[in-house]
């Protein structure tokens, strides 16, 4: 029994390392596509992390919740033009993984979103990429693929209106819809 839970912890640690490796490759690929974006990305990224660090903290809290309850933090945020999981959100994903593994009948729709910049259909594809990045993370954590579904809304369902860096940062997100 003890050994089993130990093995699981080890598996999670391993899978985290694996995902970190995967996503950083994805990240650098995204980064290289974005020459002029870097200026804007630095600005909006900063705004984003400021706004988001609060939920990151509550994400840690969510990670300590009992497995029977859906974790409170159900949105994670992304950098401009990127689909890699930011380190501060890994605890949120771990909490959701734990919940989904303990509740095999639970299902979640991973809703991928982008900010308003760029073309709508291309943004639908980017939103899907973000949701898939979360899906990969959860699956590596042992969540059954049958519990996960992906819907990308691209820029069609912004969380915040307006064209400020802060609005953009709030809109680049994946939402867990149980």
């Amino acid at each position, binding site marked *: 029994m003890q050994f089993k839970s130990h093995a699981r912890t080890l598996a999670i640690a391993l899978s985290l390392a694996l995902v970190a490796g995967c996503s950083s490759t994805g990240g650098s690929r995204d980064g290289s*596509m974005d020459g002029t*974006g870097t200026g804007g990305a630095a600005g909006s990224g900063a705004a984003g992390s400021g706004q988001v660090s609060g939920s990151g903290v509550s994400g840690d809290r969510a990670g300590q919740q009992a497995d029977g309850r859906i974790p409170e933090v159900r949105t994670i945020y992304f950098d401009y033009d990127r689909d890699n999981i930011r380190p501060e959100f890994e605890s949120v994903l771990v909490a959701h993984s734990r919940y989904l593994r303990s509740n095999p009948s639970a299902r979640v729709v991973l809703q991928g979103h982008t900010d308003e910049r760029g*073309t*709508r259909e291309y943004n*639908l*594809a980017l939103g*899907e990429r973000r949701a898939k990045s979360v899906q990969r993370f959860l699956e590596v954590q042992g969540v059954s693929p049958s519990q996960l579904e992906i819907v990308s809304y691209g820029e*069609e369902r912004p969380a915040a209106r307006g*064209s400020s860096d802060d609005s953009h940062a709030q809109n680049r997100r994946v939402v867990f819809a149980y």
Partner: protein
Amino acid sequence: MKALMTIWLSAMLLMFSTLAQADLTIEITRGSDRATPIAIVPFAADGESLSEDVAQIVSDDLERSGFFDPLEREAMYDRPSSGDEVRYGQWSALDVRYMVVGRVSREGNGYRIRYELLDVSGQSRMLGENVTAGGSEMRGAAHYISDQIFEAVTGIRGAFSTRIAYVTAQGAENDRQFTLYVADADGHNSQQILNSREPILSPAWSPDGRKLAYVSFESGRPAIYVQEVASGQRAQLTNFEGLNGAPAWSPDGRRLAMTLSKDGQPDIYVMDVASRNLERITNSSSIDTEPSWAPDGRSLLFTSDRSGGPQLYRYSFGSGEAERLTFTGNYNARGRFSPDGESIFMIHRGNNGFQVARQDLDSDRLVVLSDSRLDESPSVAPNGTMVIFATQQGNSGVLGAVSADGRASYRLPSAQGDVREPAWSPFLN
């Protein structure tokens, strides 16, 4: 009491009509410095007051095109209604190259409109025609007259009798209402096609102008639907896992190119509409989306980030190969061919944000056309002279249009919420 009731009733009616319609208005933002001066004299009306000012509609059409600079009515010394009454010296002194004169008279339940196009310097008549119109068809008749005048002077077929499809989004973010509309090219006569609480996007006209393909999230995930504009009859065409997006009709109307991610990454597929057989066109680990057919149907333009950022590629059905077309800047997406196939229009990211640009395929030179910053969804008029697109004004989505040479532009604001996703119809007559 009775007076109060009437006021209340008319308020109701007003509310109802604003809910049912989402007409757009036109604001010219830039006139072309090469526009030809023309005088469109108010048409005589045989003593009656008419519901529509035909000459004004023609004047607005021609001015919007950027090809014409209509003379203001206040500058007109007199108002001849036929070529015989025109004193040419007076008009050539006003530096007018062409003139339009006309007369509207009752005929049965409708009207007969007699108009003439005159060449002022040659003092000759270029066109003279009688147009009959039902009582509610005056605007359509005026657009027809604009088409004839435009073609007689420029040699290019007029596109004033065409329509546009667009999507409006109204209400707070958690209570959004999305509506697909079709309206005349000048924003009048809007007609609701589909209303939903879930997003609608990417409307695309069939080449015969009778149907629209579009993406609707009404089932909770994106799916492609095809709907007849006149009857409202519709069918769901796709329901694959993942993206079902960016429908684009082949020039013969038998096939739809689309984006599906059912096999992993978003790729381009072509569906035979009758049999629903699918052919996979691209197969890459990148995003491939936003297909658009060349006018000859032999190739597809599409967006791909296979080289890093989004760029435009051309897939040839003959060779089965895709060739990269855009190299200026690091974001070029949502390409559309000009009707002659010699240029492509796209959204290009430069120093001023996301803008409408044109690239001529023989020189590969890219020219930015719009002067806004968050442009999307360019759609080309069937005669290739204008591009309509979505942009932002303040915090609202509005439609804008710019001439293919970038010299003239206008906006089509709406009183109701955000307007986006314009699609210019093919020729309908």
